[in-house]
């Protein structure tokens, strides 16, 4: 399968806490991307990490990549209610972007 599999499927935290989502994949990749989807809306690109990178930051987002374990994690620090959404990883290899079922994050104010 070319898609990523996110874990957990659902995550509920209090505002201000950190949220960690994990992604596992099976194929070799050039990069791995994380996207966010608000309910019923289009996906929004968050961050791209290349296969030769181990960690990347963007604002409150921190992404790690372990190509030996074929896994990635997305950390959102100091979460806000507005972070409530579904988060998808998309391993990008020889083919196009394929998405898994996502992690549904709920941040409680």
């Amino acid at each position, binding site marked *: 399968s070319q*898609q990523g599999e996110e874990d957990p499927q659902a995550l509920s935290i209090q505002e201000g806490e950190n949220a960690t989502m994990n992604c596992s994949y099976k194929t070799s990749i*050039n*990069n791995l*991307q994380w*996207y966010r*989807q608000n309910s*019923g*809306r*289009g*996906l*929004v*690109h968050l961050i*791209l990490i290349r296969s030769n990178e181990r960690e990347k930051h963007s604002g409150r987002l921190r992404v790690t990549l372990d190509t030996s374990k074929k896994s990635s994690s997305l950390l959102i620090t100091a979460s806000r209610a507005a972070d409530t959404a579904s988060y*998808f990883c998309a391993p*990008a*290899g*020889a*083919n*196009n*972007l*394929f*998405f*898994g*079922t*996502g992690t549904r994050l709920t941040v409680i104010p």
Partner: protein
Amino acid sequence: EPEVTQTPSHQVTQMGQEVILRCVPISNHLYFYWYRQILGQKVEFLVSFYNNEISEKSEIFDDQFSVERPDGSNFTLKIRSTKLEDSAMYFCASSVGSRNTEAFFGQGTRLTVV
């Protein structure tokens, strides 16, 4: 900020009818995609398009589906004879490059087949 636009936002059609979903990708992008998402399920890849031809398609993208770039700005998805199970959100996306660059998604067209 440039964005991908899709029309209509909601389309209701009778089973067996043809529908055309329209997308205007970002102007300097070269790669175009269609995805669909059945309510509550994952975002599924349908097709990618580059240099005026399909570069990849999924098993979902059967003979009932076709894509076209009729002019320099529009990118369309046609479903020839809709089925109830085609009811879903359809997302168009575009990117400057292929898999190594981020994809920009439109807000989707909700297709309801009755």
